[in-house]
């Protein structure tokens, strides 16, 4: 439900391994579709992967590709993924590719990156021990499209297209009617930043354009308090100064969605 169904193509010779399985599972929990390249014959080293990957990109046009650097056990397969990357960048320059690798640092990785990339290509590297959530964050930014839905905690849903904030009660959705207009824009700005980069603060300068009057900051403070009260009422909780939307050291605001709202 997070966003309009993104489709991720997974290319990894260890596609049956638990570590890749965990990533695929998290992608699907995100509401994204996945297609996994499973060559029928694995006798030809990484070449089977190359043929099938390019064919899959041509036919399914994925939103992004998760591509292993090493495809196969032989030394010549060590950077096979980079050869495939080179071809993807050449033929489909707008397809984001996240390289799944153990060489995130070191001279070999640097050489590989420099030799494979064009300046404007959407390519990034992440190491295989990264958490699945880290992979998701990196893919969200690589794909770059704003999400149509953002789910915060286990109850708050922000419907970007319909400009609505909804609360999940079991299978039912309740719309929070008080959060509209500029208040919705402020909340959307905070939620979108959190969605792509949790921890990043939204500076006052960005939020104050949704405030009016001479005292823009005071007006913003009032609107933020109203958002917290409206959401708190809908959820049956009371948000304190250090909950949910936090003012950081006179710099700006930051969204911190609780994992669950039961204990507020």
């Amino acid at each position, binding site marked *: 439900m997070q966003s309009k169904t993104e489709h991720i193509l997974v290319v990894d010779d260890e596609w049956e*391994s*638990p*570590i*890749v*399985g*965990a990533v695929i*599972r998290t992608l699907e929990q995100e509401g994204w579709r996945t297609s996994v390249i499973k060559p029928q014959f694995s006798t030809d080293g990484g070449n089977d992967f190359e043929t099938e990957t390019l064919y899959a990109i041509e036919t399914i046009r994925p939103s992004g590709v998760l591509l292993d650097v090493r495809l196969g056990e032989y030394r010549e397969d060590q950077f096979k993924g980079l050869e495939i990357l080179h071809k993807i960048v050449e033929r489909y320059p707008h397809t984001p590719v996240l390289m799944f690798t*153990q*060489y*995130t*640092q*070191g*001279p*070999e990785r*640097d050489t590989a990156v420099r030799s494979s990339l064009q300046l404007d290509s959407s390519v990034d590297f992440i*190491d*295989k*021990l*990264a*958490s*699945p*959530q*880290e992979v998701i*964050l*990196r893919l969200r930014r690589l794909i770059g499209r704003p999400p149509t839905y953002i789910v915060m905690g286990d109850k708050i849903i922000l419907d970007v297209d319909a400009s609505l904030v909804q609360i999940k009660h079991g299978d039912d959705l309740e719309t929070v009617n008080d959060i509209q207009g500029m208040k919705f824009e402020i909340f959307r700005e905070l939620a979108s930043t959190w969605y792509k*980069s*949790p*921890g*990043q*603060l939204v*500076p006052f*300068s*960005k939020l104050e354009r949704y405030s009016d009057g001479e005292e823009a900051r005071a007006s913003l403070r009032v609107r933020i308090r109203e958002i917290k009260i409206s959401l708190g009422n809908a959820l049956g909780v009371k948000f304190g100064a250090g909950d949910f939307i*936090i003012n*950081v*050291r006179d*710099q*700006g605001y*930051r969204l*911190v969605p609780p994992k669950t709202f039961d204990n507020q």
Partner: protein
Amino acid sequence: MIRIVSTVAGAVTCLVGVILILSTPILGIRVSDNLWAVEPVSYIATGIIIFGLVIITFTYIISGLSRRETPENNSGDDILSTWANLTQQYFELFQHDLGRPLRRILGKEREVRATIDLSNQEVYGDVLELLDEIEGQAPNFRLMMSNVQVLIEMETPAEDLVLEPVEPLEIVRRIVDRYTFAASDGNKEITWWSDPDDFGIVYCGASAIEHIITNVVDNAVRFAGKRIEIKLVREGTEFSIHVWDDGLGIPEEYRNHIFDRGWTPELAKREERTTSGLGMFIAKTLSQRYGGDLSIESLVGDGVKHYTEFTLTLPIREYVS
């Protein structure tokens, strides 16, 4: 060429000496029936042979010395560089071999966690603790591996620094991605921002900045009470990255040693070490290598006022093609 000519000259001289010795019975005057070998011609012949051998020996000594002084030959730096390359290759192999079982363990842990989440069944606290421990150790392992990698690079003979266009904001974002979930599991929050909002590009070493800040953030997440704040500042000809945490602070006597190689607080207390003590040493050395510095400021527990702040300062260089 000179070496060949002198060697041949030495060899010919020796040969003349040998021929002279062999012809002593014909040329020389016999002193008695058994003493022809020590008559004067044989003395002269022996002298000629020794002279020939001296020529050959000197030729080889001098040519050996001049070869060592020629840079394109096997110099001391070359030996170091070959050694560093070998270590690097060995380490990459080691990293791959060690990484495989670790990925399996981590993958299995995530599989078990997903099964538990789906089943909605009560699970022993110890099991969850074990799963948390495995997941929590993953960032440590990643950092340890890259610390060793950087240490090997630092041991290689110094080369000119390669400056590349770097987006420090993007580097910080990735580091926060990596630590935000681990911090959240320990009820700690990481907040970060940049001043100005659009930080832009600097010319520096991306890996170096990433490495320094990862070590500092890892430290902050470990010792913070609840909050970690990261701030990027671009001002004039410098930029800085501040990593602040609300931990109990570091006493002055420890602050003086925090960047020493292999030093950990446990070392001073004669306790078992929990870290290698390399991270901060590497971070400081790297920052100085790029013409900057890594400094520390800390206030030790005084009611609510206690914190530690590391500041990395680096010059904003111009691009040189």
